[in-house]
């Protein structure tokens, strides 16, 4: 009898391995052209036309206080589904959908500083690396507060 498991959609940011619950992900898209939005927080990189629906793209690197990705590296979109409509997280690279066991989970370390702390729900200890689990509600919200 195996332990309870959860599925995560994973992606990479500055070499870190992140995951969001797969149920919250609507779809994953390659780089999309964006329309910049003046006057808002720099975390918002622009608006995407997703089959007639207008979606705000949030740069997760900026959101987590990381350095901007190099100019020529085009971000990918992880379209998240929330109660207030969809939004997109811009990430460096998309990983697999993986299944992890609940008992590998641990809350974020207390030493974690800065913006990332509020947005991490916790960490799954995988055999060879750590999977950082994002609180997707918070990632959508924080950008709002900052704007």
């Amino acid at each position: 009898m195996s332990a309870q498991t959860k599925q995560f959609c994973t992606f990479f940011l500055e070499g870190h391995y992140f995951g969001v619950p797969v149920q919250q992900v609507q779809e994953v898209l390659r780089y999309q052209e964006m329309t910049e939005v003046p006057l808002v927080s720099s975390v918002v990189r622009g608006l995407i036309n997703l089959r007639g629906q207008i979606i705000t793209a949030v740069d997760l690197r900026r959101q987590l206080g990381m350095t901007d990705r190099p100019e020529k590296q085009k971000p990918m979109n992880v379209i998240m589904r929330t109660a207030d409509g969809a939004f997109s997280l811009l990430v460096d690279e998309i990983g697999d959908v993986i299944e992890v066991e609940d008992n590998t989970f641990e809350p974020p370390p207390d030493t974690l500083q800065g913006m990332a702390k509020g947005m991490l729900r916790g960490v799954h200890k995988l055999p060879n690396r750590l999977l950082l689990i994002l609180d997707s509600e918070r990632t959508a919200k924080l950008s709002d507060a900052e704007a």
Partner: protein
Amino acid sequence: MMESNGDNQIVQEFLIESYENLDNLERELVTLESHPDDMKALASIFRMIHTIKGTCGFLGFGKLEKVAHVGESLLSRLRDGELKLTPEMTTALLKTADAIRQMLSSIEANGNEGERNDQELIATLTRMQYAKNVTPPNPPELPIAAGKPLDEGLLEPEVTPEDPARNATAYVEPASDHAVATSSIEPVAHPVAGKSQASESTIRVDVGLLDKLMNLVGELVLARNQILQFTNSLGHNGLLATGQRLNLITTELQEGVMKTRMQPIGNVWTKFPRTVRDVATHCGKLVRIEMEGRETELDKTIIEAIKDPLMHMVRNAVDHGVERPEARRAAGKAEEGRLLLRAYHEGGQVNIEISDDGAGIDCARLRAKAIKRGLITAEQAERMSDRESVNLIFHPGLSTAEQISNVSGRGVGMDVVRTNIEKIGGTVDVSSAPGLGTTVRMKIPLTLAIIPALIVTSARGRYAIPQVSLLELLRLKAGEASSKIEQVQGSHVYRLRGRLLPLVYLDRELKRCPEKDGAAGAHKAVNIVVLQADDRQFGLVVDEINDTEEIVVKPLGKQIKSVSTFAGATIMGDGKVALILDVLGLAQRAHVVGEVRERSAVEDADRAAKKEAEQARQTLLLIQEAHGERMAIPLSLIARLEEFNRDAVERAGGQEVVQYRGHILPLMRIAEYLGKHRNGSAVKSHAAATTTGSGSGTAGAEPEKLQVVVFRQGEKNVGLVVHRILDIVEEKIVLEHPSHDEGIHGSAVVQNKVTDLLDIEDLLQREMDEELVGAGDRR
């Protein structure tokens, strides 16, 4: 409604129909109260309650049936003229409607009528019904005043007016007879019999379906825009023709689908007579509600959005606006207050006005209250105009009612109203005249979904500007810009037909290229979009003006919603996203219009101080006369600046005139005007000689073009011919030599030169006198 079996569907239809009936019933009841003899209204009320009773009996809602039944019995006696409607009865009948409504919503939610006890209501209704069996010729007031002895002498005169009503009853009866006669035999048949002819040509459609259709049409419009772009670039003939057809069909489809969602505003207003009556009764006031333009149509979503704000304002008007009867009598007004709802189309928008003839808003008290609450400072209050003060009512936490009633006065109202109206792209404005009443005026867009918009480019970004706020487009040629765009204390202005138009640079407002300043852009042509925000105009400077397009408004994500500069976004023909500018938000950002709401007190005080400094200054038009004298005219008095060819000048009635906008514009010359009191009337013939072409007059060789400053007085225009227009300046004016001469206020130093300040009122007065004299001469 949750399961879709046949029974449920019947119940669902019953609910919808009954809600409609109840709405109408309430309205008719209130009408009936003010016109007790309106037999048609009575008959229709009776029919409606009867239909409800019939159907719920059939569906097995016993409690509902019982309540409806006693209501119906009372109504039937009223209809037969055996009783006469009293306010108490109206109240009881309205309560019946309430009870029915509650049961209906309980049925909707739980499938049954709910636990309730309507014994009291039933008893009241029954008592009223049997309170006094007034036989037909008897007077009307009695049913309630049972027990009081009749005073024949007093009542006699009342019998006569009652008669026509009775006749009317008799006359109407056959019409409603059908409904009554069958009622006891076959109640089931009624819903069918009661349904109007309309049901055959109309069907009920789920709003969700309409919404979906609307969205699809929106997508179709976008696809159409894209296809049209391709066809135009490909230039294939067959494709072009097909594209045209697609274009037409899409437009028609869009209009059609839009129409399905249109509803007359009267649907919302239906509830108001009842509300007004309830509130008025509660406050001990007498209020009559009048409605104009109830057929004005609006999109359903907009109707939904304005429903609550409207209701709030109506309650407010009755509760705060209209005075008590005693106070009204003392003020010399009719005891009954009047509340007028008016709706009409204007310029692609719907205007809704709610006006009362009450006491108006006491600006002083409002200011005092605002100070007490710390919303504004005392100095600010002093500087506030009445118009500004009145708009304080939109400030959160401010209510003018002295006493907080359970109706309104908690101060959470008007700011919410304003927010809600602005959310859908509308505006609210209040004007009030002390003692005469208050008017709340709303401008609401017809629809939210698809709007015509102007597409502009600024700093490589594309933006859509809703066409409703668009006034005109201006283009200043390269090189022209630096001379035509002037600065007033650092802010740029452009003279648009003699009026200063404040300019707002879109790229700067959006912080797109902060390093670029006006000087760098001066070599390029300047595109100005003249916009209207509230009651101000301003020019928006953009890089490029592209085209007008029908755009589909899409909401913004919550991350961006807080930026008031954007109203939404849309998808352009090339599939890219463009932001829609919120003109009012932009104007507020650029400080073109005041924003009492969000300013902090400190900032406000700052601004007010600045404003005061500005107010002491005056904007003046500087002119120069032939001999080099400089004169100034306050810009506020000037209607327009015009240029006329000299040969356009004609003479009429011993005066120079030109034809101007289909009217005759009398011209005056400064020299002539001032000369008259300096040198007597001799100048006049002189001036005449000048214009007749000899060119040897005092003015010397006149230029081919005449510069004319046009003033407006009432319906009339007067033109003042000046030698040269120098400049428009904003200066603090200190009159150094108050003049005793007519025509001149005095002299002041403007731009380091002595300048005479012309007395324009005098000029206009003189023009009128002259006209009279001229008329006399001719006679």
